[in-house]
């Protein structure tokens, strides 16, 4: 297993680029790189938006239409040109513009099919509803639910990418056996037990855990970096996400 950090590349050179900064720099969906970057971001973070729309009272069907319609509007209505380039984080940008969009849409007739039937981002409607059903029912504010869901989605994405990384080296079993060490400090027994389960020496388990944590930290940093305008903002955004969990 290698501990190299391919993602370091993004921090090299004078102008570090994050996906979101690429989108902001172009501010024009005709730019192919920006369009691809925006598309990737929307795919990664559509669920918190869906959750927000549902919590605001939309039916599952309307929520799907509104989310899709919103993604179309993002490009068509020029929301991207409105963002404060210096300070706009993807998370706050999406929520603010979604609110504008919903206000506009609710002013229009409710029977109109939203989003002009466009399907820009693949939303698995049945799966979305199933997932929404698991959201806590007692969360009062849609805003708070959106932020919390954002943080959870981010963690989901990081763990999925991390597992795929191990899987590509045929090491899913190792990942599944070790992932519990990502969340908490563990007593010596945990390492011994895991070593027995995985048929490894305890020292080897410790080294593997050390590397897993490093890769997790790097991936988390990169995923967060993709949603802010500069890598310098990563620590502050991480702190905010953490405060949402408390």
């Amino acid at each position: 297993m290698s501990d190299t950090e391919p993602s370091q590349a993004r921090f090299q050179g004078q102008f570090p680029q994050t996906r979101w900064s690429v989108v902001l720099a172009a501010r024009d969906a005709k730019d192919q790189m920006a369009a691809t970057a925006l598309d990737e971001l929307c795919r990664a973070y559509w669920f918190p938006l869906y959750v927000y729309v549902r919590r605001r009272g939309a039916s599952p069907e309307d929520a799907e239409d509104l989310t899709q319609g919103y993604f179309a509007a993002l490009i068509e209505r020029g929301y991207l040109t409105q963002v404060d380039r210096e300070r706009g984080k993807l998370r706050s940008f999406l929520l603010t513009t979604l609110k504008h969009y919903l206000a506009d849409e609710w002013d229009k007739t409710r029977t109109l099919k939203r989003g002009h039937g466009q399907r820009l981002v693949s939303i698995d409607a049945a799966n979305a509803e199933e997932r929404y059903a698991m959201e806590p029912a007692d969360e009062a504010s849609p805003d708070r639910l959106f932020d919390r869901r954002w943080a959870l989605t981010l963690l989901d994405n990081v763990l999925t990418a991390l597992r795929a990384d191990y899987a590509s080296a045929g090491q899913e079993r190792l990942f599944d056996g070790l992932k519990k060490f990502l969340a908490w400090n563990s007593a010596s027994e945990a390492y011994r037990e895991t070593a027995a389960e995985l048929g490894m020496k305890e020292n080897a388990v410790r080294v593997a855990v050390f590397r897993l944590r490093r890769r997790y930290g790097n991936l988390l940093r990169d995923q967060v970096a993709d949603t802010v305008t500069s890598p310098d903002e990563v620590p502050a955004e991480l702190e905010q996400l953490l405060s949402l969990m408390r």
Partner: protein
Amino acid sequence: MSEQSKATTTANACAACGRSLPTNAPGGLCPACLLERGVALATRASARPGDFVPPAPEELAVLFPEFEIVSLLGRGGISAVYKAVQPDLDRTVAIKLLPPETARDAEFMERFRREAATLARLDHPGIVRLYDFGQRDDFAYFVMEFVDGVDLAQQLAAGPMSPPDAFEIVGQLCDALQHSHERGVIHRDLKPANILIARDGRVKLADFGLARLTQPDAGEMGLTRTGARLGTPRYMAPEQLNGVTADHRVDVYALGVVLYEMLTAQLPVGHFDPPSEKIPALTPRLDEVVLRALNAEPERRFASMIEVKERLRDAVARPGLTRPERRQQLARRLFAASLLAAIIGAGAVWLWSSRDASHGQATQPTGPITERATLPSGRLIVFGGATCPVANERVSAVALGGGLNEFGLALLPDGTVRAWGDNRFGQTNVPAGLREVIAIAAGQGAKSAHALALRADGTVAGWGDNTFGQGVPPMGLTNVAAIVAGELHSLALTREGRVVAWGNGTSPALAVPKNLPPAKAIATGADFSLALSMDGRVTAWGVNERGQCDVPPSAQSVVQFAAGSHHALALLADGKVIAWGGNSSQQCDVPATLPPATAVFAGGDGSAALDASGALRVWGKVPMPAAEFKGRVAQVVAGSQTWLMIEKPAATAVH
């Protein structure tokens, strides 16, 4: 965590934090714990590319299960040093970690093992002991003796040392180097950063042979041109720089550079003046010793470290003090000064403040302490409040106490104390004969009326209100490095980092937590107390009616803190300022536009921060026009009525 979520904790709860797990928790793991750990890891990971990013202590722990990794003490281009405890052997150690690429180099590891085995045989009180070495994952590491003190580079950053201290240090270095040279071990990278001074005044030489180790082309006998560039050129002998065969006399040369730098605060480069021409008090006979050590031709230098020591002793013969006495004197001068800079608190102000050194072992001393013990000083400017007899005069420190009935203390450059203001409890009756004072403190809070002074010998004097025993320090209290005074209680920090409290026995501010880790600074408000641990964490205890003891979780890597009557400020390593506690005058509303700060001050219900540009920002109840003093502020002392400012001395000022 809220009580509610605790109550609903069931089988589906996080084993670590007790929060209930959402049904859709990412990877089935507790999202809060996952993110919390991730934030520590990812924040660390966001350093610049190419740098060696040392693992965080909690991250490293998994590779070193036999140690408790306490903190990261420092990092350089080629290594990171951690403080750790080895519980089985009941000892504190330093673990030095080399970056991963070195351990991937088989040739390097071969050399590493060979060198380390040699170093492990060096056994001398003046050489940092090597206990163990090896490799964990991709890290080669050394386990070494932990030295609690400062390094000489930190010390020299403050200016030249007194000649007796410099001679004492060189004498100890000669002994250590003679020991290693007799065993065929050349240091090769002798420089102030590798010279540690322990709190007892013992000098310890670190990083023996590491220069050769990290230079891939270094042969058995010397260095190649390629290798030489990796060293520290300013301290390198010409033959070392030129890459020709070098012997133990490269250490003689480097020692000459270090001695010259200690005496003059300059490096002997180009056509440099002999020390006695720069410092008239020095004897010209000393010049001969320094110049001979610095000779470009190794043959014309001293042949051995013993010879250096003897010549030095002949040149500067100082009868009188024995070796242990000289060592104690060194320790007293260095650590009284360095810890003085760490005294933090509303009731006390200390010498020129400075950010904690990256090494974290002690706060960097900021002013040269000469033999005559003239303290650094600046002009005192007074805002609001009572008439102050030393306004516009030069003072070294000031303190304000009391509430509406305010009183003040000033530490004068000659080590004596002046007091003014309310005297109903004798709080301005400075004891006759009080001399050699290096720090002062005045009680915080409306009912306070006592004062404390710390002498250079580590003892404490107290006067004023003693109704609750707050005015008179406990019998036998010595070895004190810092003092602060609350409303009805007092605290002292010893040089070992222990916090001692006295005063009103029923006050919770007196109840120093049992498991308080060793502290490097203390502070007190009216009825609460704060301690800053060596690894930058803040512990608070006392009355908590205004949340003044609820230290926010973000108070990590704290380098300095300050307490007002009922609130506190902490300065983080990244220059961020956080505040907590009473907010009646918005003293906790840190301005959103505050630039990264270099120091924080608090008093009464007011707060202030100094930024790198020298600008002062104030918020809360502060009767002072901050903007006028940009670049001139050395210290701010905040009372409940008066604020005092000490101006920075001009750069050329000599006291």
